[in-house]
């Protein structure tokens, strides 16, 4: 199961998609909006996706993980649009017969989502905003004031 949605995510419903009688372990990851970044108060995150390609990459990640760990019961659902503090932006659920594989596979799925899926998040502060770059801090210098928040 993969998906991109503008609606709030339901982690239990997504987790239940991967539960099977042959599985003894289910690992679920929730990515949630933190209230601060380097001491600055964050008001919300705003996610944008290249949806067609993002869904394609999420399906590729499922196949990758299946090839590496032999695990087919994988769900990846990303929320886009504004996500308030404490709310969930990403749910990854992985189930397998034993726990070790489920932990490793779930962790790897999350890492890969952050590496290759074309989704972007903007941190919105009280006095501005910045587009986050995937952990490499390539673009973590403060952005100039946003000129065009929406050009569609």
């Amino acid at each position, binding site marked *: 199961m993969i998906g991109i949605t503008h609606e709030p995510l339901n982690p239990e419903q997504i987790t239940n998609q991967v539960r099977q009688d042959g599985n003894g372990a289910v690992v679920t990851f929730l*990515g949630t909006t933190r209230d601060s970044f380097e001491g600055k108060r964050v008001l919300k995150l705003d*996610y*944008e*996706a*290249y949806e*067609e*390609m*993002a869904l*394609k990459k999420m399906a590729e990640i499922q196949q990758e993980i299946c090839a590496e760990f032999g695990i087919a019961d994988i769900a990846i659902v*990303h929320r886009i649009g504004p996500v308030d503090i404490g709310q969930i*932006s*990403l749910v990854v659920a992985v189930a397998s017969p034993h726990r070790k594989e489920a932990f490793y596979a779930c962790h790897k799925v*999350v890492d890969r*989502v*952050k*590496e*290759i*899926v*074309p*989704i*972007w*998040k*903007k941190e919105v502060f009280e006095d501005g905003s910045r*587009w*986050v*770059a*995937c952990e*490499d801090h*390539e*673009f973590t210098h403060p*952005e100039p004031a*946003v*000129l*065009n*928040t929406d*050009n*569609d």
Partner: protein
Amino acid sequence: MHLVVTFFALYRERAGLRQLALELPDGGTVTDLTDTIRQRFPNLAPPDVKIVVAVNAEYADPDLALHEGDEVCLIPPVSGG
């Protein structure tokens, strides 16, 4: 050839637009495209940062040849999750 290039996120905001119609000589590559884009938007990305391009919803090598009708998108560093 005639191409429509889509900008996302950081690049959309820096360019100040979401889509751009562009003429590129036939046989042009992804690198030709990003060179053209950099000339037009010098502040899109620092010179040492590679501009990643997706062609038809797949990450494209810099030397990939483009064709009329390709769906071309500029992909800033991703940050989902």
